[in-house]
């Protein structure tokens, strides 16, 4: 099954973690699991081969065997090696000192070029306050121009389009001239999806590039792409020598091994990650996080940053004070849940936590559950919220009626609250709760 090999990898590493020494057999077994995990993550098999060879070499180095905790070192070697391959720090677009900066988007059909064009336009406007125009050069796919008109205007970009009767090279040229004349900071040229083996269309793409002299050509790659990513990237690199990659559909559960393959084979950096249907779900690509994702180690960094961005420091201080004084009540509990909800859908949050993936398989997080819990808490008196131990028979019944739930649900909520309070106390005392155990309890 798809996930079981990645799980196995984690299990193997956990096993190694738990022991004091590392034998050559251990290394080989680990390597086998890493190989399988990478293959299941769709990393190209040639890349996997050279990668595992290097890991093996490094793992079998003298300073590994006999060390205090060799298992941890293997994990680190794998992770470091992967991050190194992914390209270290995050990269940026190269802006032209003389605007407009021209960006050409290219890729296979259905990889998400038009959506990415809109998202990039919005991103540049938000991040740099750029005035952006987008050019509709996909004259082949039915209604592609209409799509860009909609997406582009939602993104606050001006859409340059001439319908579908003109040649895309001419449209691109015209759009560039117009962008210069209108003093735009950035022009993003959306092109038709094309197969890397379609000589005619690839030649056309090269012509578009010649016509607009872009500062950046971005290849849009679907994160779900399999082994073929290498062929695609090689061909596009050969024909238009693209400068960077946009990975799309990263909000799915694909491990995204294609990112590693493309980077390893072409050496081109991945610049952006597209992570949802909404225009603002677009961010700079972080190679280290992608490495973790491919290995199924979770995405703790992203989670931490998300939490930082939407968590109010004052509230945090207040919460800490309450925890110390032990008067953390149901009101605070509700506020906590609201904070968490602000981070995004629960399912995706849990996916970012390492070790949780396996525990949560098959468990659906019901977002409506939150509304139910909220209704129950809001049906309590302020005093009851501060002192849930007051809630007995008749109060319970009243709360159940008031919230349109039943007595069981009220009981359950209070039990959950007690658990959370216990965990929060542990955390505030500097102890990290066992997430696995927590998830089992939650079930």
């Amino acid at each position, binding site marked *: 099954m798809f996930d079981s090999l990645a799980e196995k990898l984690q299990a193997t590493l956990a096993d190694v973690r738990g022991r004091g020494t590392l034998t050559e057999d251990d290394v080989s077994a680990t390597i086998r699991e890493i190989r399988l995990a990478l293959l299941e993550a769709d990393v190209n098999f040639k890349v996997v081969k050279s990668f595992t060879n290097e890991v093996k070499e490094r793992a079998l180095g003298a300073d590994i065997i006999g060390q205090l905790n060799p298992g941890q070192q293997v994990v680190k070697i794998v992770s470091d090696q992967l991050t190194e391959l992914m390209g270290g720090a995050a990269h940026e677009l190269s802006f032209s000192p003389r605007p407009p900066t021209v960006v050409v988007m290219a890729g296979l059909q259905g990889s998400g070029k038009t959506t990415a064009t809109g998202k990039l336009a919005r991103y540049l406007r938000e991040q740099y306050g750029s005035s952006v125009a987008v050019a509709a050069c996909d004259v082949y796919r039915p209604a592609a121009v209409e799509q860009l008109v909609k997406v582009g205007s939602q993104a606050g970009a001006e859409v340059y389009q001439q319908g579908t009767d003109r040649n895309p090279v001419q449209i691109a040229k015209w759009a560039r001239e117009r962008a210069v004349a209108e003093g735009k900071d950035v022009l993003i040229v959306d092109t038709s999806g094309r*197969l890397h083996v379609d000589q005619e269309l690839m030649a056309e793409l090269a012509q578009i590039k010649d016509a607009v002299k872009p500062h950046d050509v971005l290849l849009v790659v679907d994160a779900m792409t399999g082994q073929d990513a290498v062929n695609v990237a090689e061909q596009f690199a050969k024909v238009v020598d693209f400068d960077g990659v946009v990975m799309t559909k990263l909000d799915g559960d694909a491990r995204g091994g294609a990112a590693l393959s493309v980077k390893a084979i072409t050496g081109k950096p991945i610049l952006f990650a597209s992570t949802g249907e909404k225009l603002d779900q677009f961010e700079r690509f972080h190679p280290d996080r992608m490495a973790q994702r491919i290995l199924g180690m979770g995405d703790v960094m992203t989670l931490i940053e998300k939490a930082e961005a939407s968590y109010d420091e004052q509230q945090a201080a207040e919460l800490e004070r309450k925890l110390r004084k032990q008067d953390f009540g149901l009101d605070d509990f509700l506020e906590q849940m609201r904070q968490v909800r602000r981070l995004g859908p629960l399912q995706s949050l849990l996916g970012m936590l390492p070790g949780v993936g396996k525990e949560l398989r098959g468990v659906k997080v019901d977002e409506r559950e939150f509304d139910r819990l909220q209704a129950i808490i809001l049906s309590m008196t302020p005093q009851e919220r501060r002192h849930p131990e007051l809630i007995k028979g008749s109060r319970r019944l009243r709360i159940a009626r008031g919230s349109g739930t039943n007595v069981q649900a009220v009981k359950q909520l209070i039990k959950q609250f007690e658990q959370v309070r216990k965990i929060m106390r542990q955390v505030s005392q500097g102890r990290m709760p066992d997430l696995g155990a927590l998830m089992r309890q939650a079930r």
Partner: protein
Amino acid sequence: MARDWRDLFIVDGAPPPEQEAAPATEQRRGGRLRRLRESLRKTRQVLQSEIQATLFEDLNDETWERLEEALIYADVGARTTAQVVEQLEREARENQLSGGQALSDRLVELLAEIADTGDDRIELLAKPTVILVAGVNGTGKTTTIGKLAWHLSRELNRSVVLGAGDTFRAAGVEQLELWAGRAGVGFVKGPPEADPGSVAYDAVTAARRDGADVVIIDTAGRLHTQDDLMAELGKVRRVIAKLIPEAPHETLLTIDATTGQNGLRQARLFSETVEVTGLALTKLDGTAKGGIALAIAHELGIPVKLIGMGEQLEDLRPFDAREFARALIT
């Protein structure tokens, strides 16, 4: 096993009139095969060194390793690959198999057996037959529907209605409308940002009213991990089933041939929501081999029914397991 449009569809009573003389059909099939071969030749250079040479040598550890790599390279996935290779190894050990052509033939046979799962035909007996089409964004749902409608209408003389259930993507409705025009079939859409369930309702109702043979419901692309959107898809299905209890008679999932192992997750989760009855494997005209369809057939028992091999109308074809198996390893 469906090899031609007339094989693919199960229709009532007399078979639809032969519109073309046999030689023309023959030629078209030749053309299709040639296209498939051509598109696959592009990667053959790579693979030849990897596997083809090996297959004609004696059997040894390297043979199995190369074979494994070839299947992995085709996106068949580690699990299915391991089982196929193990099976061949076992047969070789028991002296039932030798190297060279015999191995190559047996491999194709085995892969075809795996691919040929369940019933890969599409029944059009109900009137109207409701076909629901779902899939991840960008896998080619709308294009597949357009071409399918064209074939049903032009080659099989069926009256078809298309329901524009992709009310989410900018210009999704317009794209389908253009296809309906090309295929000359009926078209039902709702107001902008309409509920896809209501569009499905209207389309099925219109098809019944007009006595159409087939109604195909398009849906917005959605990731299988988006619970709310998957719930919406489930609702579309329920709306259809409320009108006609047996419907949708066919639920097709589009899978992009370039998809890697995530395709299995897609098939699994879409199946849980809308009971997928067949795959449309699209974009086989590139260098991707679509081996993920084999893994899906193997692990979930969902047959491939249609393959998309290009942008032209005739590039949508019925699936042929043996042809597919051969293409996987050449």
